[in-house]
């Protein structure tokens, strides 16, 4: 018995069917949980989306912008400017810190001249008092306010140091060095171009005498007139 040769056409047809069948099987076996590229860019209400982010209950701290305070001299020709900058915010382990810088400009020299800078921790602050300027416009004083005291510092408006080369006069320190019977209560202003008025306290918070601090000599004069 002779076998008939297998027709070549049938062989190719079978091969094609097997190839297609294999492709279908492989295609069905792929992970369909991954969205295709196209489905990922087509919005669909049925596609799960993560919730929109909402602000957290504690906002991110923002350092406030620097502030400026200006105070004109009695003759209107000079300006004392205080720039207050928050340098670090309060944390659980440290208080807020601020930098205070004091500048002077004059009508003849409008360029800001830095006279003094100081960094303090809250709640301490610094300020320019109403009577800051000396009557002759050559000195000024600024104040540091702490919970327990108000400290005054006197400067040359020119920015130059005093005769003893110190950049400023710490009124509290000078007073404590020279006066032991009374404590410094307040500095109110200027009695004359170089005389700062100091009121004192006696024991048990009684009014003490008033003094003049001569800022040129760093000397104190006890007054018979009370400026309390």
């Amino acid at each position: 018995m002779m076998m008939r040769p297998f027709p070549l056409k049938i062989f190719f047809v079978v091969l094609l069917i097997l190839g297609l069948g294999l492709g279908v099987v492989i295609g069905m076996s792929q992970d369909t949980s991954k969205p295709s590229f196209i489905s990922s860019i087509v919005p669909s209400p049925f596609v799960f989306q993560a919730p929109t982010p909402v602000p957290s209950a504690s906002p991110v701290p923002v350092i406030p912008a620097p502030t400026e305070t200006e105070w004109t001299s009695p003759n209107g020709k000079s300006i004392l400017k205080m720039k207050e900058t928050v340098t670090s915010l309060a944390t659980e382990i440290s208080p807020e810190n601020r930098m205070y810088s004091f500048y002077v400009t004059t009508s003849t020299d409008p360029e800001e001249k830095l006279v003094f800078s100081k960094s303090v921790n809250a709640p301490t602050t610094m300020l320019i008092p109403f009577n800051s300027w000396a009557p002759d416009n050559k000195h000024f004083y600024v104040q540091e306010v702490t919970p327990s005291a108000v400290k005054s510092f006197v400067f040359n408006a020119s920015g130059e140091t005093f005769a003893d080369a110190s950049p400023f006069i710490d009124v509290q320190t000078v007073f404590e060095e020279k006066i032991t019977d009374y404590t410094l209560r307040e500095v109110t202003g200027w009695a004359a171009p170089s005389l700062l008025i100091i009121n004192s306290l006696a024991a048990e918070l009684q009014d003490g005498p008033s003094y003049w601090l001569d800022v040129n000599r760093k000397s104190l004069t006890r007054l018979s007139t009370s400026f309390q």
Partner: protein
Amino acid sequence: MYYSISTLVASLVFAVASLFLPRPFFPFCANSVSCIHNLNATVENEEVGVFAGQQVTPPQINLAEATATKNVLGETTGDGEKRIYVDLTTQTVYAYEGTTEIFKTLVATGKWGRTPTGDFKIWVKLRSTRMSGGSGADYYNLPNVPYTMFYYNDKVPKSAGYSLHGAYWHNNFGHEMSHGCVNLREVDAQTLYDWADPATESNTTHATSEKPGTIVSVCNRVEFQEGSLPSCVIEAAN
């Protein structure tokens, strides 16, 4: 000799008697030496002043500068009668137009001499004048006192010389520091001077019936109510 003794006795009698005079009549002048003897603006740029035993340099004043009315405060306010209130308790001056407060600053009133209370009228404005008075350690002699506005009423005559003016010799505002006048910072005195009536016409400006001076109310306390004029509280002792 007899003349000297009689003068001495008369002085002593006067000094003792003055202690018993009612306070409104003492002192007779805000500035006991200068009082008011020159009703023209005077400038003495070469002079040196004396205050608190210290020499003070007065501001250099040029009377040739323009003195036309500036009315700095009035430009933006407009309506209402101008009035100045001085609060002796808080050492504060207020400028009002109608019921609107348009200016406020600290002043220094009488320490060595009392500042009389009551309602006054500005009668003359001087760009600059000299004031002197006191004695001993309290002596003062101050040329070029800037932006002076003398005021008066029926109890405090013009000759008493009370005024609002700039003070260049001290900077202790908010505290009593004068011999009876109302001291202001020079810049603040200029602001009030330029605003107050009579409108400045020259370095010496007199009020007239046609151009009356602004009323100055000097009060022991000034009390405020929204939308109405402040009330001037004057204590009975005055």
